[in-house]
């Protein structure tokens, strides 16, 4: 029996196909254009190697900010519930999930089955999210992938305020103008984001172990800065961006088996 989960994020869309509960295909693509069309294309592409079509799926759960626009989804579930479910599947010892996505970041507390106990989400502002890193990478003419490793090379990070993305960007530009070292600026940016996310997490009673998911988890500089502040090692799943889609697929499986969704 085949089921699928789709996570339509603000920057990336992800799909996962399960066959009898096991992952048989996964795909990540940039979100761009009309979501209805993208979700169709993405799902068809993920199914093609299996020789399957959307109609062969017993059940589909959609999540992410574009979840309401996936025409073939049987159910929409927020990314908060899906990340909880996805993480608990691989790491039942995790009690807190930090998710750093393109447009927002979240702290989620879960029980051993991945059921959400409490959560916080950042404000509308992009500071503390993937978008912020992207803006800064652009301003510094550094590729997004290089940002994390660069940050680790600095011995004396610059101080960067992070009340607002626009202010931070102009601050970064003036630092560049003053001829400051790029690595120090990059490191400062990571500290600022980590500070912001840590501030948000303090609204929760954080319990260990802590996992980090979403695109931000792939940034080693950010992971290290957060670990410093949290005083513990973070669990980084192999495919941190796929956790939401995986959670959605697991919920789809439960639906298909006739059990109530989490």
């Amino acid at each position: 029996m085949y089921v699928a989960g789709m996570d339509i994020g603000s920057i990336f869309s992800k799909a996962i196909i399960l066959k009898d509960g096991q992952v048989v295909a996964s795909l990540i693509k940039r979100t761009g254009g009309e979501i209805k069309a993208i979700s169709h294309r993405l799902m068809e592409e993920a199914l093609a190697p299996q020789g399957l079509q959307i109609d062969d799926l017993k059940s589909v759960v959609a999540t992410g900010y574009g979840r309401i626009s996936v025409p073939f989804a049987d159910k929409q579930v927020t990314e908060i519930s899906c990340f909880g479910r996805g993480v608990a599947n691989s790491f039942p010892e995790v009690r807190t999930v930090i998710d750093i996505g393109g447009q927002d970041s979240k702290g989620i507390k879960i029980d051993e089955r991945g059921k959400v106990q409490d959560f916080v989400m950042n404000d509308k502002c992009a500071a503390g999210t993937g978008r912020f890193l992207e803006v800064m990478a652009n301003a510094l003419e550094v590729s997004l992938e290089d940002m994390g490793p660069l940050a680790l090379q600095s011995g004396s990070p610059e101080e960067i305020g992070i009340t607002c993305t626009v202010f931070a960007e102009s601050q970064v530009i003036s630092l560049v103008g003053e001829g400051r070292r790029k690595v120090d600026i990059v490191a400062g940016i990571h500290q600022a984001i980590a500070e912001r996310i840590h501030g948000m997490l303090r609204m929760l009673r954080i319990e260990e172990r802590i996992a980090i998911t979403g695109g931000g988890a792939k940034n080693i500089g950010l992971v290290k800065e957060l670990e410093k502040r949290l005083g513990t090692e973070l669990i980084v799943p192999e495919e941190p961006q796929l956790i939401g889609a995986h959670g959605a697929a697991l919920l789809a499986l439960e639906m298909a088996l006739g059990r109530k969704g989490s």
Partner: protein
Amino acid sequence: MVIKELMNRFFTVVADPYSEAKRRKEQGQKVIGWLPTDVPEELIHAAGAFPVGILGSSNNIRLADTHLQVWVCSLMRSSLEMELCGDLDFLDGIIIPQTCDTTRALSGLWRKVCRTPYVEDFLLPKQVKRPSAREYLTGELARIKTSLEQVTGKKISDETLDTSIRLFNENRQLLRRMFEIHTHQPGLLTSREVYTVIKAAMYMDKAEHNGILRDLIRALEHKAAESAGTPDSKARLVISGGVWEPPEIMDLIEEAGGVVVGDDLLTGMRYLTPDVDEERNPLEALADRQLNKIPFGGFDNQNYERRRFLLDLVRNSEARGLIFLHLKFCEPENYDYNDMREALNSAGIPNLRLETEVANPSLGQIRTRLEAFIEMIGGNPIERTL
């Protein structure tokens, strides 16, 4: 069907809130507005004027930003905007309650930059536990009474004030009855409908509102009897905060699978509780109503601490969780929040904080938070069709 028609009347009022006020004005009656909340409308009514609430609007804020910084709550920025745009030209006067620093500053500003001929303050006591509070408040109400008499040229006798008090008590009682039916059978009206009826009371003639509301209650009671026993799967929720703005927030809550069965909102329970004692000296009784109001960020209750109040509210409403609905930059609520959240957490009551603004709603993230919260506490979202 009858319910729909009656509800339409209330929806028409909140969509065009000042048509009745303007009609009154044309007929030569004085119109006195009030800012949220707690202004004793009974005094305005007894002075022969028409009281009407000024609660901001969903229009963009442009002109007000010349005078108020963007970190002032949008309720007051939007209300000032309405005046500066000329939307409140029908007002003969306005009473501004000094609830927080913002309203205190706004009162001076209103006198300076607005055209409203008569601007009066309602100076609420802050130390409500002191015995002097009652005496002070009775004096303050007497001062406003005299001030209103001067502006309308009509003396307010104890008899006319008693008559007004009875009319407004009746309105509160009817509203509470409607709310009670709703909490027993939350499927009869939507959350937005319930709160729209309450909001409409702030714009309408009370006698007219009472009449329609009585019909609505009759229709609801009838339907309740018919549909008794129908299970309701919605997650019962309490809302705590200032105002339920933007109004779409109520739709989002229902779409996410929730229903509002209790609140401490200025445009909710705070407006319809408690009654004024009809047996007493009217000014003292009005003062007592004020002192016994349910607590909120800007005003304590003399013998009901807010933390305890909220816990009781959740329990008595049989709610599964509480949503703090805070206006961005509402400082009384912001200062109160951590204490309140702690109290709820300690009692094991799931809670969520949403920040909204009166104008310019941006609701995408709010939808996600709401849905996640209701998924967390267990509830069935309404099926969405594309």
